[in-house]
């Protein structure tokens, strides 16, 4: 889509008219593609320089081509050479470059003096950040300083952050917003397979016969990937089943939409396994050869209290024990608790159980932002393990990511308190290995993890953390039970540094604001949902004094005396960092492609071994790391076997009651990227979705005499908010449930949400709490 800002007003209006219609079409036809339009809008008489990059928005990781002219990005089109999107783009991708040119870009560092912000030079601002860090460490100890980053960090950003904080300063106070979206996927993979990230890849879509979407509104959140599903349906008649708590565009486009009561996906998954066993659909030889059975602790709590601790105690069980456990999950019983009919449970089981059908399960926030999230991830793996439908083309349990580098940076570089780029901090060998590459004494790396995200903000509130550096993320919109953490950040004696490209509610709480270079204004890499690492070069100069987050961290590290570890040269620092980072993952299990390869093609899937991508891990036919002589090798576990987990259904932390009779769920919309700090500055996207709203079921709305646009007050135990109602529009929640998107900083729904989390992953449950609904 051509997005030059220099077109005349009439052209601009024409374009707005066209885009409004395209956006409307996208509402009615999820996954609709206007590929030709991308080419058509590009001016013929310009001499554009086209360069490839992964899209800035979303974990699908589409390849885009960016056309620049005279130092300005003026066009974007889908990269036809990218195997991810094959030339297509969604509405956010089309408009991505407009996010570079909002009129209020941060261009100069700002330092808070009293109640005002004073412009300062980058040099002075970085001096101040470094000296504040040193002072805080001196006065309160190393664990009083912290960094909170993002799945939108590039790989080098996250890598230097981890090296500085964990390797040099010696604190594990490193977290990232992916804790709020992907931590559960990680613990799901680790507990079931011992290694993180999907075993398959997007190519599975081309082979699967049935797609089961577990609480995943793909049409809005992963639109290009969803269009690949629709395309397969057109070509091969595949089936798409939407299993969710709310009717969405995805449900409308699916062949079958099944609604379940919030939290009861646990029971439904167990009922499917019950049916698989009862009907003789278990792949016995696969289970015998490649699986163990285990159970863990139950009634773990919900992490609502400060300093909550939980460690699971896995215990081996037999297949017979597991079958006995499943007796409680007959379709008839589960139907009562879940609201899913017996027929539909059997329908799902039949799809998974049919030996002639390849099945792909896809999920994202519905299963991850879940107070028993690790469990539900385990349970969906159980289905694929019992049937042996895993690690082969088209048979694929696939956890999708939301952010462009939640996988590449947070999960692979390991920017979470317990992680190192390779392994975990409490493993001596892993610490030694990292220390050697980082050129730091091994004693520097603390063997004890400190705070996960929610606890990190609680520590800020308590005063255990005094200094926090926030990069590329907007926690003052996204934290659950937000008011507590906003008040915490404003307390005396806290020093907050925020690196970003636009003012946000998070820059509002900053003592120092550092302007960052965005996306192709610097060089970097992202890693998407299918283990694909993608490189982008610097195509534009950042505005004013803005520099990359990587450079900000390097400069502060040098000021703190770590010149030896941060030896990188200005011109080649990204290459040097990537080359150093690759050493952490050497070997057949996680080797990353060399930079030349990433530069020459639309990314590469790891493990990249002997010049080849590994598309299906753990399958000896495709994965050179398999070494047990069998057809499958789950080498993340010592005995090479995956784990089928016995995990029960347990209720959510807070469920509707007399006083708060509705469920409240939150989520995203297609037009906006997360908190909208970029996409709300793109006129056509802002116009298409200007503010948040509360969706109600039509029956509830009619009983309460609420029409679309009426003001509705929502109250939870944490606070209240008034929003316009949306009835029978984009999404329709089930009766006695409401849904609110979180992109709107003027209507902060997270002031109402609960900070309960999955005890294993520590990821908050944004999908479930109890709320009162009133017409104003």
């Amino acid at each position: 889509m051509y997005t030059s800002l220099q077109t005349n007003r009439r052209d601009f209006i024409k374009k707005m008219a066209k885009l409004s219609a395209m956006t409307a079409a996208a509402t009615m036809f999820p996954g609709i593609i206007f590929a030709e339009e991308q080419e058509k809008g590009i001016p013929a008489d310009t001499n554009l320089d086209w360069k490839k990059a992964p899209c800035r928005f979303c974990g699908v990781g589409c390849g885009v081509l960016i056309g620049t002219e005279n130092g300005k990005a003026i066009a974007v089109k889908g990269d036809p050479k990218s195997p991810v999107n094959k030339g297509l783009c969604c509405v956010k991708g089309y408009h991505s470059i407009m996010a570079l040119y909002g009129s209020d870009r941060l261009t100069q560092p700002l330092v808070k003096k009293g109640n005002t912000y004073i412009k300062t030079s980058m040099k002075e601002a970085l001096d101040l950040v470094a000296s504040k860090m040193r002072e805080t460490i001196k006065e309160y100890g190393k664990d009083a300083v912290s960094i909170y980053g993002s799945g939108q960090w590039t790989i080098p950003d996250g890598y230097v952050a981890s090296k500085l904080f964990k390797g040099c300063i010696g604190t594990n106070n490193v977290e990232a917003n992916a804790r709020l979206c992907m931590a559960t996927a990680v613990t799901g993979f680790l507990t079931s397979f011992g290694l993180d990230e999907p075993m398959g890849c997007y190519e599975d879509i081309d082979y699967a016969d049935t797609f089961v979407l577990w609480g995943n509104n793909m049409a809005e959140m992963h639109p290009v990937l969803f269009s690949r599903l629709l395309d397969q349906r057109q070509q091969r008649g595949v089936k798409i089943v939407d299993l969710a708590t709310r009717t969405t565009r995805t449900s409308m486009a699916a062949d079958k939409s099944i609604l379940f009561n919030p939290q009861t996906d646990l029971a439904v998954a167990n009922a499917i396994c019950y049916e698989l066993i009862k009907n003789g659909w278990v792949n016995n030889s696969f289970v015998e050869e490649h699986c163990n059975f285990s159970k863990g602790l139950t009634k773990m709590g919900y992490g609502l209290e400060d300093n909550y601790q939980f460690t699971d105690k896995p215990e081996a069980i037999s297949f017979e024990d597991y079958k006995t456990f499943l007796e409680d999950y007959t379709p008839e019983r589960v139907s009562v608790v879940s609201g899913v009919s017996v027929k539909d449970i059997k329908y799902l089981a039949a799809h998974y159980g049919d030996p002639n059908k390849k099945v792909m399960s896809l999920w994202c926030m519905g299963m991850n932002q879940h107070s028993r999230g690790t469990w539900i991830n385990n349970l969906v793996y159980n289905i694929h393990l019992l049937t042996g439908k895993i690690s082969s083309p088209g048979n694929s349990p696939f956890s999708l990511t939301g952010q462009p580098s939640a996988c590449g940076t947070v999960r692979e570089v390991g920017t979470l308190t317990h992680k190192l780029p390779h392994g975990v901090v409490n493993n001596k060998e892993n610490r030694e290995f990292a220390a050697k590459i980082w050129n730091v004494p091994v004693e520097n790396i603390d063997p004890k993890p400190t705070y996960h995200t929610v606890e990190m903000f609680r520590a800020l509130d308590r005063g255990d953390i005094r200094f926090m550096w926030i990069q590329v993320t907007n926690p003052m919109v996204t934290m659950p039970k937000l008011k507590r953490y906003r008040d915490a950040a404003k307390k005396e004696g806290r020093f907050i540094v925020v690196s970003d490209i636009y003012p946000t509610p998070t820059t509002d709480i900053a003592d120092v604001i550092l302007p960052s270079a965005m996306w192709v204004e610097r060089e970097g890499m992202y890693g998407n949902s299918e283990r694909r690492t993608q490189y982008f070069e610097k195509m534009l100069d950042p505005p004013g004094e803005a520099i990359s987050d990587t450079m900000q961290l390097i400069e502060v590290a040098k000021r703190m005396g770590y010149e030896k570890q941060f030896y990188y040269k200005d011109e080649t620092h990204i290459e040097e960092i990537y080359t150093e980072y690759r050493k952490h993952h050497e070997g057949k299990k996680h080797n990353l492609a060399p930079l030349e390869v990433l530069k020459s093609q639309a990314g590469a899937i790891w493990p990249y071994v002997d010049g080849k991508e590994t598309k299906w891990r753990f399958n000896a036919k495709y994965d050179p790391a398999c070494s047990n002589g069998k057809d499958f090798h789950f080498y993340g576990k010592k005995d090479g076997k995956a784990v089928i987990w016995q995990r029960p259904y347990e209720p959510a932390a807070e469920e509707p009651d007399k006083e708060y009779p509705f469920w409240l769920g939150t989520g995203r919309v297609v037009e906006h990227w997360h908190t909208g700090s970029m996409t709300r500055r793109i006129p056509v996207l802002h116009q298409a979705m200007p503010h948040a709203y509360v969706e109600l079921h039509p029956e509830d709305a009619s009983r309460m005499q609420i029409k679309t646009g009426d003001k509705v007050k929502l109250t939870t135990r944490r606070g209240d908010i008034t929003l316009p109602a949306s009835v029978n529009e984009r999404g329709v929640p089930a009766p006695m449930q409401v849904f609110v998107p979180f992109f709107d900083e003027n209507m902060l729904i997270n002031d109402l949400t609960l900070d309960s989390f999955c005890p294993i992953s520590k990821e908050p449950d944004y999908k479930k709490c109890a709320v009162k609904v009133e017409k104003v």
Partner: protein
Amino acid sequence: MPIKSYLVHPQESKKHAVIEMLSRMQQCDVVVAENENILVLVTETESKEEEANLKEALEKIGDIKLMALVSGFDTRKKI
């Protein structure tokens, strides 16, 4: 100087015929969806009368099942 955009739903298997017809009309700009039976139509006319005449002409195209107005702008001044 009205500018309007519509979602145009062609009759079954008439997408190409509709595209061809609309492309021949000077005031029409068409964007075709690759994977759905739908088109985006943007019309640009010099006056309200021309706009009304165009609308009438469009309504006569039998291969169009439905036309839904999405947005309308009127740029008064010539720019």
